[in-house]
């Protein structure tokens, strides 16, 4: 994680707006303002300036608190608009 934070900082990115995906397990998303759509196949997360579309199979919200969300399931596609 330290390496990732270092890379993001050097690139001038905000670590709080990053997300992590582990194939066939799930993903952890930060800075989520709201959930625009939720189904086991598709989840739409609204961030401050972007919308993240997550597509996959058996998607479930494992934990959602404040601006952090953990999505369980097999994530196959992520679109950032």
């Amino acid at each position, binding site marked *: 994680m330290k390496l990732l934070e270092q890379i993001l900082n050097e690139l001038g990115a905000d670590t709080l707006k990053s997300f992590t995906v582990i194939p066939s397990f799930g993903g952890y998303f930060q800075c989520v303002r709201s959930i625009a759509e*939720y189904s086991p196949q598709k989840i739409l997360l609204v961030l401050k300036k972007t919308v993240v579309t997550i597509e996959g199979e058996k998607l479930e919200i*494992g934990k959602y608190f404040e601006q952090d969300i953990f999505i369980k399931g097999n994530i196959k596609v992520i679109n950032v608009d």
Partner: protein
Amino acid sequence: MTDLTVISIVSTAENALNRLKKAEVAVFNCKKEGAEFIFSIKSKDIKKVFAIFNKPCYNIKVKKHGLIRRILSFAALRVGLLVGAVAFVALAAVSNSFVLKIEVSGSGSYLEPEIRRIVLDEGAAEFKSFSAFNGATATGRILALPQVTYCNILKKGSVLIVDVQVDEEHYASQEQGSLLSDCDGVVKNVVAVCGTAAVNVGDAVKRGDALIYAHTVIGEEQQSCLAVGYAEIELYRTVEYFADEDNEQNLKEAYASCLIENEQITERKHTVKPTEGGVIYVIEFTCLHKLSINLN
């Protein structure tokens, strides 16, 4: 470990999640089941969640209470059962420290009344605390019983088991019944290892009188047992011995004729009566006659 309550609500997942997020309620394990949106929250947030979705259209309900709440609910509905269980466990724990039964096993079980008496003497009794029992002394006293070669006292639950083994050679060769006097005399000593002394020192006894009874008294109860012990009876006897003449050698032989096995002469005197062809030594003596039972 977080205590989670499962909530079911008729609402869109997006709407429910956004409302919960605004109220800063942590949401776990969300899933959709038809029109219902099911999620878990920390049990402490349950009132908050019901306040958020207080409108009837949400049809919110608790699907599964948290573990603590379920345990409390289970306990509240089964107070009698729990009180009974606690009472049972307490009773089992307390009764385990008590002796409720004494059992004597092994080839030496024919000595049970005597063993039971020793065990009672050393502090063990039915419905009495085991801690009051002096096991080492009891074991020593039991081992001192005739023919006992092995003794082990152990407590299994509430039962005190005394395992006693005797010398196989002597087993089944025990003399049953009481020790009876085979002569008239005065009791000088009586030792009852097992059983009960029937006479006291100084008592006059006749042939056939009991000296040691084959029973023992435990509390107020009389129980049969093996009589083990010995008694010494002082008796008076007169012996006449014929000799051709009165001399020292003949007197020695006259005295020698008095010696009988198991007897110890304590006092003696003699008179010499002349008779046709010689003399008669009349020897009067008192002796200790020893009788024993099951002491071999």
